[in-house]
């Protein structure tokens, strides 16, 4: 994974949520954006878990 994947993914998530909040999102795109958001969340979760493991291992 690239250095700032988490940050990128998280920023994208934030912008999706912002779009949703401002209702800039059309119904047609909504499904697509939700799917994308789910992907990003999964990616972030995996990364977080990996980092947590890394911390455990590195600083054990």
């Amino acid at each position, binding site marked *: 994974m690239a250095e700032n994947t988490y940050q990128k993914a*998280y920023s994208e998530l934030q912008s999706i949520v912002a779009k*949703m909040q401002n209702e800039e999102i059309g119904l047609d795109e909504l499904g697509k954006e*939700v799917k994308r*958001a789910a992907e990003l969340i999964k990616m*972030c979760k995996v990364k977080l878990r990996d980092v*947590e493991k890394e911390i455990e291992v590195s*600083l054990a």
Partner: protein
Amino acid sequence: MTSYSLFELNEYIKQVMALNFTEPIWVNCEISQVKEVRGQVYMEVVQHSESDNLIKAQSAAVIWYKSFLFIKKKLGDLLPAILTEGTKVMLKVTVEFHERYGLKLNIEDIDISYTIGQMEMARQKIIEKLKQAGVMEKNSFTTLPAVIQRVAVISSATAAGFADFKAQIANNEYGYDIQLDLFPAAMQGTNTEREVCAALETIELKHTEYDCVAIIRGGGSKLDLASFDNYNIGHKVATFPIPVITGIGHEIDSTVADMVSFSALKTPTAVATFIIDRNMQFESEILQVMQVINQLAKQKVEYNKLALEQITQMVALKPKEITRSHQLQLDQTKELLKQAAKYSLKELTEQISYTEKIIKMADPQNVLKRGFVMLQKGKKTISNIKELEIDDSIILKYYEGSAEAKITKISK
């Protein structure tokens, strides 16, 4: 001309001497050579000229067996240091002249306090000189690494202090691997200055390979330490490019080497402890930093987890909200449509019934009903007078029946 045999002359000198030196006398001088042979000590004592340091007086001196036993008992451990080339001594001597062996000073006693005093004076002079050279503090301004891993040790391979030092470093409880390279040098006696300086010079050539120098020596008497009250050693240590730590093995006194060193410790063991403790200090700092990093890293992960959870909730809820609002809009639109449709239907219905009314009103049957008559000639309805002629037979159509008539007169 009267002449004497050499023996007669020497015998005469011997008598003169014996007459003039009936009692032992105290003489201060410097030992320039010393040799112990079968329990007797033979030496050369000298006095240097103050101005040019050349020898201006010299005599042979001897400690006979009996005196040696007495002096040995009196001075104990200090004796070897006293009977060293270069030591300034106060000797109680009898002056004796032998016909064959010439003048000899028979040493009966040694005043140790004189030697100590001389050494102290010499030491003060050296300190003064080093101060004037401006180097006293120099070594203490060098940098000792936070972790000491490579130590150049100046010691005697056989010194007990060195063995202790080596063992303590090797068996340190934290398991630090510290490289000790020995640069052997005499730690007491006349060779000390030369050998210690030579060892320092050797190390200096490759000082970048070492974190510090340790000068290690086991215990010894105060006089033994005098070798380290030396200008050349002092200057070398003071100006050494890396820290020099001394553990010369004494509890109370501080030698010149100690004074100019980076750190002066009382014993070799103390030097080992110093090195190990310094490394341990570093390690514990690292461990602390690690703990802080661990904590911060965990916090950061926790924070991100929380943020991600929040955003996940948003992603889960917001679309529902959006679809619900779209649904609502749709429902509203549907309702509006329904109402609009109802309204226009009513309008149309009204329009149609009005039209129907109008049409109904125009129906001929309804006109006849109101009492009007319709004229027909044959099957044709007559609505213009021009269509009629005299004697035409016409039908008068009423609502409820019809009658035949004949045209008798036409007026236009």
